[in-house]
């Protein structure tokens, strides 16, 4: 990792008011070609951290250093998209081209680029459809396509798999893994520890400040998770992967099992 170039870094970043800070003294560096997952409970400041990385929010204290000329793209949570807005897939993707050409209509080269990026994401035939007429996976792909049209070096994604089923989650993660293997650095936020975070090369556990930062095997342990989520959790190993289990569920399950056994063997 040390050989990789640093794309951007937060140093001592604090956001919000003194008594109600969303982020406190956060240090976080993102490097070339990295695939990072930011995890934490609701209200932990994950989206705020992403916004600070993206530059759409300024920290109250601390600094944000970006490599000169860094091309970034931001994919917001699908829940924040106005799906009723009158915009077709092609119009949506073309929004990424805001610099350079000023004419409203796309040039021949731009049309070819949009077709190319939509084709790469297997949604080429949907270009003239309204964004609401698509399935959940297709909708997510449209916003990834918009991000990719700007040819970013760093892709920031807010909860890309929130509210999607297992099949769709696999589909999105497979796509992101493929993009990362082609050289795109990705930072995403997620609630899903087992389905997403455990599969990423690097996890950042956040709850207003960084509690843990490293590979899943190093970070996903009972101590870090309890400090991050404020609840007792256990980490098991399955197929060489860490699996996080809610201690309440385990206790409840073992209690239920013993109760069941007692009722059969009085």
């Amino acid at each position, binding site marked *: 990792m040390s050989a990789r170039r640093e794309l951007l870094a937060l140093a001592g970043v604090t956001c919000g008011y003194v008594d109600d800070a969303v982020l406190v003294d956060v240090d976080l560096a993102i490097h070339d070609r990295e695939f990072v997952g930011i995890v934490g409970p609701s209200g932990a400041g994950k989206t705020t951290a992403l916004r600070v990385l993206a530059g759409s929010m300024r920290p109250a204290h601390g600094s944000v250093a970006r490599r000169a000329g860094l091309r970034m793209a931001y994919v917001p949570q699908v829940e924040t998209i*106005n799906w009723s*807005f009158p915009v077709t897939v092609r119009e949506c993707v073309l929004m990424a081209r*805001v610099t350079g050409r000023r004419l409203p209509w796309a040039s021949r080269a731009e049309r070819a680029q949009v077709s190319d990026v939509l084709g790469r994401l297997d949604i080429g035939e949907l270009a003239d459809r309204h964004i609401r007429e698509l399935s959940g996976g297709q909708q997510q792909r449209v916003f990834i396509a918009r991000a990719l049209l700007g040819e970013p070096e760093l892709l920031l994604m*807010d*909860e890309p798999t929130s509210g999607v089923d297992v099949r769709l989650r696999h589909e999105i993660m497979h796509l992101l893994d493929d993009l990362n293997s082609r050289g795109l650095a990705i930072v995403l936020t997620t609630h899903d520890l087992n389905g997403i975070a455990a599969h990423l090369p690097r996890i950042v556990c956040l709850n207003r400040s960084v509690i843990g930062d490293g590979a899943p095997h190093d970070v996903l342990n009972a101590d870090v998770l309890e400090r991050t989520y404020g609840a007792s959790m256990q980490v098991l190993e399955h197929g060489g992967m860490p699996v996080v289990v809610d201690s309440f569920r385990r206790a409840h399950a073992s209690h239920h099992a013993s109760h069941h056994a007692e009722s059969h063997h009085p």
Partner: protein
Amino acid sequence: MIDELLRPFDFEFFRNGLLVATLAGALCGAIGVYVVLKGMSYIGHGLSHALFGGFAASSLLGVNFLLGAGAWGIASALMINAVTRRRVIGSDAAIGVITTASFALGLALFALFGTTGRSFDAALFGSILGVGADDVIAILVVGILAFGLIFLRYRALLFTTFDPEVADVAGVDTARMDALLTVVLACSILATMQVLGVTLVAAVLVIPAAIARMLTNSFARMLQLATVIGAVCGFVGMNLSYHLDVQSGPTIVLVAATLFAAVFVATGITGRRRAAAITAQPPLAAR
């Protein structure tokens, strides 16, 4: 019959009025698309009332109406824009205070000092009779500015309207886009005030855009359709205003409302669903 329909074209005031009404309809139709999609309808309504204060003050001071009310309107627009972006207090409350206070000031000034120049009724409800060459020039200048902005900053305006946070990350100066849009909105209201009146301008901003939304799912087509629909409503409404001897503002608004009802019925469930979604705002982003 044809002679009767063409007879008003013999009068210069009618030709001026028709030109201003048609251009005003097109202008409000186009700007209205952004107003409706950004959820700025209340700002449009408020700004039109705020301009009334400027109209009264310029009348009292003997200042040119377009300059006096224009400066007043642009100041109000920038103030509203700043309040809306900073979220110091609720934007609806802030707009309500700024614009209704301005409207009340206009009414008080008229009550205390009377009016010179333009008529009180014309300012409130629009009138074809007072349309002069300066109104034609004003609508042409504002039209060139507004359509110039839409043409040259089409992509940035669309991105800012649809997804301001991501537009910001992509390098769009969204604060500047919002300020430009609000100033153009104030200028459009000012230039159309003579034929539509301050109490009815908001309807012409909203109705053509709402009709266009029922007819298409594409932003580019919505913009084109709203412009044409606004122009047609202005043209037809102004002709009816002359023949029915009703003020131009209400006639134009009633033509637009009738067209809205017809399209609402004709497009069935699809149109209704699209119309219902116009005001649907995305939920707040998670923390």
